[in-house]
């Protein structure tokens, strides 16, 4: 752990939380993607290790969806 921390400060290595614990980004394959359609703008990042998905994060921004309409009645 101490060695890892020392390396972090000296080389600014990015650490990724994975299903296998903390891993250096350089040891992983990074895949990114995005999607935009009528309801959302979505971006995701994945990290793979030995053909296994070990990290996936997603950011979704919703486009305008429900609107409550107001109507007044007649007499």
């Amino acid at each position, binding site marked *: 752990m101490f060695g890892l921390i020392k390396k972090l400060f000296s080389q600014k290595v990015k650490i990724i939380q994975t299903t296998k614990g903390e891993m250096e980004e350089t040891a992983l394959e990074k895949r990114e993607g995005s999607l935009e359609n009528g309801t959302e703008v979505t971006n995701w990042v994945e990290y793979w290790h030995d053909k296994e998905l070990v990290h996936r994060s*997603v*950011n*979704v921004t919703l486009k305008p969806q429900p609107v409550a309409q107001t109507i007044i009645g007649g007499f």
Partner: protein
Amino acid sequence: MANVAGMCSSFKGELLNGIHALGPGTGVPARTVSTADVVKAALFLVSASRGVADTVYNTTGELAGTGGYTQGGVTVTQGTQPSTSGTTGIFTPSASFVWSSFTSSGAFDCVVLYNSSQGNKEISVHTFSSQSITAGTFTLTMPTNDASNALLRIA
């Protein structure tokens, strides 16, 4: 000058602020009017059947309480008062919804907002593309709080 019929724009924002309680009083909850209700956001599986016919939040179809997810969801940050923009009443939470150190129990595509201070009454159902999270973070970024984009709009 002519008279023009319509719902007052200010009324729409005031509804979101809990200012009006119409009718004979039946069903009006006891409340401290100067305190906002607690609103929560919960995630639901692709296989769930949430929709506008829902009245009260429940855990049917919600992500399991595993992998860093707590059933019931996260508390919505309400730093911005509901208001009126043009003729539209608007409200948008003031911070994104974030689940971190999170591994989802299955694919999900829905977030439900509900009022945990008022018997978990549901407010809205929002859907997006199917997602799954692995040892990561899921963020729902809030839209601009205006008449065209606010998360909740009464037009």
